[in-house]
């Protein structure tokens, strides 16, 4: 029975197919919202699915002078990391499929795999746009990773556990956005940085470096990276919602809260101008990290007193 349950959790629900389709649905909502904010019509509901199918069916061109194995394997690892992280978060408000002490750290690591793989994929090819994109992607990762970690550790400290299920259980009765507003902001903006959404899309700024690190990718590899990003959008929204927005007790609350958060994220994306990479780094280390740290210290002091 246990094996069957594991297979279902991995391949169908909540990991695997479900999260893939849900991720694509959320990606569509994101694209549609931005389009409407920008006075465009936007894609039809099946567009992300159609894009993925088309890309998956296309021939993958492997450029010369790259490590072919890495070139093929990196997108797989990226998607696998994103999919695996879905097993540890309370998707649609259910208990996480797997849970152990410290799974928060593992999940954050799994979520970073995508960026790491993107950076490596860019560095693997000789294309100049890819190299610049890879440098920017990794630079950006090093700037937001620490503040985001601090932001997500805030709830962990007040819940006195590093287990996502315990934290989300605690958050159901505490709206942490009110007690830790800075953490919430840093987490949401960090999520946008992770997903390379505007204004943090310098690593894939099309007017400068074409498609950044993924310039050489076509066909299957590109599809897998895109799917990984969609899954990560879903997982990231789930994490932030579960931690900061009063938890996700049931599917209805889950969808209402994550979609509301997505509206905010889409609004920010359409309002802001792209930051240069050095501005992104400056923003994170000068404000993001310091603010998160300040809140962290306040919390520790408060906990210590109480």
């Amino acid at each position, binding site marked *: 029975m246990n094996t069957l349950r594991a297979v279902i959790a991995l391949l169908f629900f909540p990991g695997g197919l479900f999260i893939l389709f849900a991720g694509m649905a959320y990606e569509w909502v994101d694209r549609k919202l931005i389009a409407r*904010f*920008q*006075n*465009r019509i936007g894609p039809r509901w099946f567009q992300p699915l159609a894009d993925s199918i088309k890309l998956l069916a296309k021939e993958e061109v492997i450029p010369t002078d790259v490590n072919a194995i890495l070139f093929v394997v990196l997108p797989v690892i990226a998607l696998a990391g994103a999919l695996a992280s879905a097993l540890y978060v309370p998707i649609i408000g259910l208990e996480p499929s797997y849970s152990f002490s410290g799974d928060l750290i593992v999940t954050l690591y799994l979520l970073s795999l995508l960026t790491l793989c993107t950076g490596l994929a860019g560095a693997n090819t*000789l294309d*100049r*746009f890819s190299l*610049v994109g890879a*440098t920017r992607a990794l630079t950006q990762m090093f700037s937001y990773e620490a503040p985001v970690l601090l932001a997500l550790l805030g709830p962990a400290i007040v819940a006195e556990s590093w287990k996502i299920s315990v934290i989300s259980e605690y958050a159901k009765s505490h709206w942490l956005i009110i007690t830790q507003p800075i953490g919430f902001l840093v987490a949401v903006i960090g999520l946008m940085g992770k997903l390379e959404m*505007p*204004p943090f*899309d*310098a690593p894939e*700024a*099309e*007017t*400068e*470096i*074409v498609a950044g690190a993924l310039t050489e990718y076509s066909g299957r590899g590109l599809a897998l990276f895109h799917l990984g990003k969609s899954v990560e959008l879903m997982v990231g929204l789930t994490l932030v919602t579960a931690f900061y927005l009063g938890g996700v007790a049931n599917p209805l609350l889950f969808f209402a809260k994550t979609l509301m958060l997505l509206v905010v994220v889409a609004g920010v994306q*359409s*309002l*802001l*101008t*792209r*930051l*240069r*990479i*050095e*501005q992104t780094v400056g923003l994170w280390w000068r404000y993001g990290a310091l603010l998160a740290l300040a809140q962290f210290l306040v919390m520790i002091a408060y906990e210590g007193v109480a």
Partner: protein
Amino acid sequence: MQSQQGNKFTIPIGPQHPALKEPEHFEFNVDGELVTGASVRLGYVHRGIEKGTENRSFVQSMYLLERVCGICSHVHATAFCLGVERLAEIEAPPRAQAIRVLVAELERIHSHMLWLGVGAHEAGFDTLFMYSWRDRETVLNLLEDITGNRINYSTNVLGGVKCDIDREQAAAIRQGLDFLEERTTHYLDVVTSDMMFLRRTRGVGVMTYDESQRLGAVGPTARASGVARDLRVDAAYAAYDKYPVNLVTETAGDLEARFVVRIKELFESFRVIRAVLDDLPEGDLTTRMPRRVKEGDTISRVEAPRGELFYYIKSNGTDTAERVKVRTPTLPNMASVLTLAVGHQLADMPMILVGIDPCFSCNDRMVSVKGTLDSQCWTWEQLRQYGIEYYR
């Protein structure tokens, strides 16, 4: 990786690149994200238009020259008409001259709105891009209403204009301008107060007054550096002496100033168009134009939305021009891109490039020819052969 000379890391932009809407090749040497050198190779869209005018009559050349630029087609036709009319010693009637000014200013609105969108897009501010292009539809519709075309209006004919403005059209224009004025006020507010956008424009690509003089910048690019030069004021042509334009200059010389100058010019255009509509002279639209144009040569200069547009026209007494030379404003402004690029971030390159409002295919002329022929004058057959050899 051929163009990676020595240990320089070169980022190519173009001839095919998402930042460029037309093919032109730029190479930026970078050290990390910092640009240390820039070079350009022009000429990917050379179309032989100047040569083409040499075996077309003046009337047929009008059609060709309107297509030098897709965005500022009217000023090209105006420059050519004014030059040929001067050679033929006729003058278009006042009403025609006023309509030329009216269409030219509508075209300037269309061009500047388009540029505003492109500039915002290069900065990654796609919302402003979408909004300004949506509002630009208003002026395109007005132009379609007047001339029948959204671009390439072919308003001009030698000796006058083709289309008249009636009462209803005038009312529609006024209404459209009211809407645009409201939107433009908003955009001026956005580009001068949006903190995130200012981070990408304020203090970026600063060109001082001296530098702009040395590099020979023209048009709004120069006016953003405090150069008070505008042919509509300095050498008023068509009906600009009757409907004077106020110069718009800024002194900062950075990208923000270029945004501000162009947006403020929109307000000037609104004002001038209203003045033309208020005081449109009655009378004919055309005068009789002789088929053969007297021998002689002339220089015709007009202010295109991008700056000074220069035409040299030489007639040999037949119905065909012997030589037509076109210099579009992108060429003198190009030097400023290469100079300003050095020392900036790679991320600023698209914005600095677009800051001059480049129009590459208008700009491409054959300047020097390496080859076996010594003669300055080539026949069609020789040109054709050269083209075949070049691309072989």
